[in-house]
């Protein structure tokens, strides 16, 4: 990688930063996409944007906090069901209400699950958390599949559109830009969190959890907070999804979608926030293409599985790992050295 300056050994050693470039490229694509593709594809891509939030919620848990959650769809699906029920049983479809309700649903569900799984007396094993979240997701899927009031196995259609005032938000270009704006906000909020001094604790925790306890940190509390925040984002994503697809079913709550959330994160590159977004784009584009290709139509999931396996086995840091150094992925958390002397007290999000 090219050195960017020769002015001193410190700066010369620092390689070009990749994250801002990837951010800029993705943002440009996000803005330009609907202008470049058909209305049909705009709807498909809107779905990817919504799923990207689910993927980010997984990454916050696993990539940043070491919580192996195999049940992220639970919060997604539960929020979807709650807003669908509200629409169908009470006719409430206002955007400004639906979004917070979706978020609150995800948050509360995650608080409930996290309480049991993370806040026990002893630090839980990764496998315990993985199985616990998986079981919760599976149980919820089975429960709604057998519950007539919420449509049982058929799920529920949402016939009304989401409304902002009197404006009806149909799937299409406006929905796209609203979802895109929300994704940007979710990304920025998550980035703010993981690059804060709180994020430093998470980074330390990933490297040596026991050590942090000897500083006086209650690591479980940090984990539980991230887990709840991630649940809230998954809930937001699920609420949007129910309206965008006009449907919510047991599958949106269960282990298949939960596993997809894991795959998005690992395939794109965990612990980066951008990786999961790339993971969603890559996996959804590949499956969209494969399922349409006559030659592989009947066994495309197998082909997809093989592709995922090859990438994750060959590159554990995921697609983004091809361009992103470990050093940059972890980042720095103090006031940047370059800015230190210039303006020590003013630090916005001074992380690399």
């Amino acid at each position: 990688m090219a050195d960017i300056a020769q002015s001193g050994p410190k700066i010369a050693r620092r390689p070009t930063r990749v994250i801002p470039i990837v951010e800029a490229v993705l943002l440009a694509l996000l803005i330009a996409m609907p202008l470049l593709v058909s209305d049909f594809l705009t709807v498909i891509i809107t779905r990817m944007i919504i799923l990207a939030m689910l993927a980010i919620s997984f990454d916050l848990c696993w990539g940043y906090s070491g919580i192996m959650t195999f049940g992220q769809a639970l919060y997604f699906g539960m929020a979807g069901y709650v807003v669908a029920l509200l629409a169908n049983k009470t006719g409430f479809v206002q955007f400004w209400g639906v979004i917070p309700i979706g978020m609150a649903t995800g948050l509360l569900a995650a608080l409930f699950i996290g309480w049991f799984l993370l806040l026990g007396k002893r630090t839980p094993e990764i496998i315990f958390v993985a199985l616990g979240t998986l079981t919760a997701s599976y149980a919820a899927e089975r429960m709604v599949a057998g519950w007539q009031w919420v449509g049982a196995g058929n799920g529920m259609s949402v016939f009304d559109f989401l409304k902002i005032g009197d404006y009806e938000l149909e799937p299409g270009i406006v929905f796209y830009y609203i979802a895109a704006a929300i994704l940007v906000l979710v990304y920025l909020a998550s980035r703010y969190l993981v690059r804060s001094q709180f994020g430093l604790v998470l980074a330390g925790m990933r490297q040596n959890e026991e050590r942090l306890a000897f500083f006086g940190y209650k690591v479980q509390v940090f984990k539980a907070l991230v887990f709840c925040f991630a649940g809230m984002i998954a809930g937001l994503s699920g609420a949007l999804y129910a309206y965008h697809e006009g449907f919510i079913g047991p599958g949106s709550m269960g282990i298949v979608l939960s596993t997809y959330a894991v795959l998005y994160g690992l395939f794109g590159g965990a612990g980066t926030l951008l990786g999961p977004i790339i993971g969603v784009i890559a996996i959804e584009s590949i499956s969209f293409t494969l399922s349409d290709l006559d030659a592989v139509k009947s066994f495309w999931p197998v082909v997809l599985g093989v592709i995922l396996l090859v990438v994750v086995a060959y590159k554990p840091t995921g697609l983004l790992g091809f361009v992103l150094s470990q050093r940059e992925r972890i980042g720095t958390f103090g006031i940047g050295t370059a800015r230190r002397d210039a303006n020590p007290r003013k630090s916005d999000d001074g992380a690399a």
Partner: protein
Amino acid sequence: MALLEVQGVGKTFGALRALDGVDVSVRANTFHGLIGPNGSGKSTLLKAIAGAHLADDGTITFDGSDITKMRAADRARRGLSLKFQITAVLPELSVYDNLLLSIQADEPVWALVRSRSRGEAHDRVMDALERFRLADRADDLAGELSHGLQQWLEIAMALMRRPKLLLLDEPTGGMSPEERRATGELLMPIKADCALVIVEHDLDFIKDICDHLTVLDQGRVLDDGTVAEIEASPKVQEVYTTRV
């Protein structure tokens, strides 16, 4: 009353009685050396004090409260700081961030989310970097430091917490004689602020800096006293000449 009072502490690993009725008393602002042959229970005792594991019996009182069963994080919050025998800096964080992580441990969670103390902590981090001769390595990853410098970083991290009692397990392990001397110099000034319990095999080093020594052997206190007393102790002489 002493700052730290260890009374009748025992710890068993399977069939092994690693600590057997150990009494140690450490006064504020003193340097207390813990010596003894390999496997005599020195690290086990430090871990029981810091909360890395719990004592099976006996009591540990620190600064007026019984901490025998307390969690490590709570002990740390009361002013106990430990440097493990195996260095445990966070290798993939910069030296600077290692120190910041240690400083900010008392902040409430919301203040951390909002990064409120980043600016304030900066000056303290820079001071510590200067003091421990790490200033020009601030941006390097802690894992890239030499073993000796990692030890210094860890001592600096432990001190950043402004502890009342610092526990150091073999801080000069793997250091050159030159680095050892420097470590002693770095430690002396802290006596004004806190007490120190230090485990060391280098007897010359420990005699230089400690006021008081406790000698462990096979999980029991063999002898206890000032440096002069221990040097003159026939019991200690025997263990150190026949078995080390």
